[in-house]
């Protein structure tokens, strides 16, 4: 059995688990849809204002939805002892952790991409910026999962880690939020956004390479 075998076994396991506990998939996406539909109600009949702040609304909601789903990343594995077994494996824990984060993103991040264009149209976003919105979500949400994983790994041993988790993780989400919502905003005026996209790509590459190590180390500390 090889490392890639173990990696895919973890992904498959987590996807099967998510399918059998459907609320895990439904919760973040419902939250995302609900928050976005509340904005027009709160702001009232001001379509231009809504159109202007649409990128920000969508991205802030995506960010909060992704943070809400973070706790489920390691919680059940921590509670039933599977996490010990994963960390005891002779394969590098960081790679196995990366598998878990990837499965988590497929379950909680990817659905956001699917509903986001529809919600963007509701908010009156111009259709030529929808592509850029999807691209920023595609590049940005995995970063949210990867960075969030470090925070969850640190707080999974605490019973009431929720508040600390948001304090730890939200500041680290800020660069993604700034570049992503800025890219969508600029795109709606028709200007090129390659600079923002390139920065998002580099943030993604950096977090894929660097985030699994501290996550694995923090998990080892948490199960102690």
């Amino acid at each position, binding site marked *: *059995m090889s490392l890639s*075998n*173990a990696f895919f*076994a*973890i992904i498959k*396991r987590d996807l*099967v*688990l998510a399918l*059998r*506990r459907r609320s895990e998939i439904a919760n973040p996406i419902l939250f995302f849809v609900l928050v976005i539909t509340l904005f027009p109600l709160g702001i009232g009949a001001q379509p231009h204002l809504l159109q202007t702040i649409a990128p920000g609304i969508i991205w802030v909601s995506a960010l909060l939805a992704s943070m809400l789903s973070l706790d489920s990343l390691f919680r*059940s594995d921590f*509670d*039933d*002892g*599977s996490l*010990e*077994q*994963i*960390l*005891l*494996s*002779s*394969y590098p824990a960081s790679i*196995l952790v990366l598998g878990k984060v990837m499965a988590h993103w497929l379950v909680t991040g990817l659905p956001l991409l699917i509903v986001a264009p529809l919600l963007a149209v509701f908010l009156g976003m111009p259709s030529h910026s929808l592509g850029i919105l999807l691209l920023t979500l595609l590049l940005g949400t995995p970063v949210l999962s990867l960075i969030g994983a470090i925070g969850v790994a640190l707080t999974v041993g605490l019973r009431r880690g929720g508040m600390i988790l948001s304090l730890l993780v939200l500041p680290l989400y800020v660069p993604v939020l700034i570049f992503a919502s800025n890219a969508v905003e600029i795109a709606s005026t028709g200007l090129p956004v390659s600079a923002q996209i390139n920065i998002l790509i580099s943030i993604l590459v950096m977090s894929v390479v660097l985030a699994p190590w501290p996550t694995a180390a923090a998990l*080892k500390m948490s*199960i*102690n």
Partner: protein
Amino acid sequence: MEENEVVRLQANQLSCIRDDRVLFEGLSFELNAGQILLLEGKNGSGKTSLLRILCGFREPDEGELLWGFDAINDSQYQTDMAYVGHLDGVKKELTVYENLKVSLALGRPGRYSIIDALARVNLANYDDVLVQALSAGQKRRLSLARLLITENKLWILDEPFTSLDKQGIALIETLMIEHCARGGMIVLTSHHDIELHDVVVQRINLS
């Protein structure tokens, strides 16, 4: 298992301090192939803490642990060791077979196939059953089946007989004797009086 390799687990002057309380200090032992180490002591005497140090989850506050001639932090030890703890480490939403398949992917394939291992722990025909439908004793046997499907020289077992019935206990004892006969080693804690014939059992009383 390779016969020519000299493997042994050696502890030198281990000590463990938890919340300013000394659980044990100056603890030394040596465990060779085919031997069992039984940890005894009252509740809270540090049995589980010692096992978690042996697993590498905790660092000993003093002392060192050697596997062969190297410190246990090197990866060979991780490959050679398997742990069954208080928590079963199985997912209740997965079937028995799916659980073992993941464990197999995470370790080195061992002597038994998944189906054979399930038959060995009297869980044959349970492979498609969700774990949440199993009883506590069946779950325990499932987590012990993990030891059979992967190849590990050292088994670390924390109260392996919890929630097992008489037949279950006899079964696990047989498996442990077989493992030792093949040159394996076992470290375990147990409140249950174990009957192991033809095996060297060292006892350490922590209290």
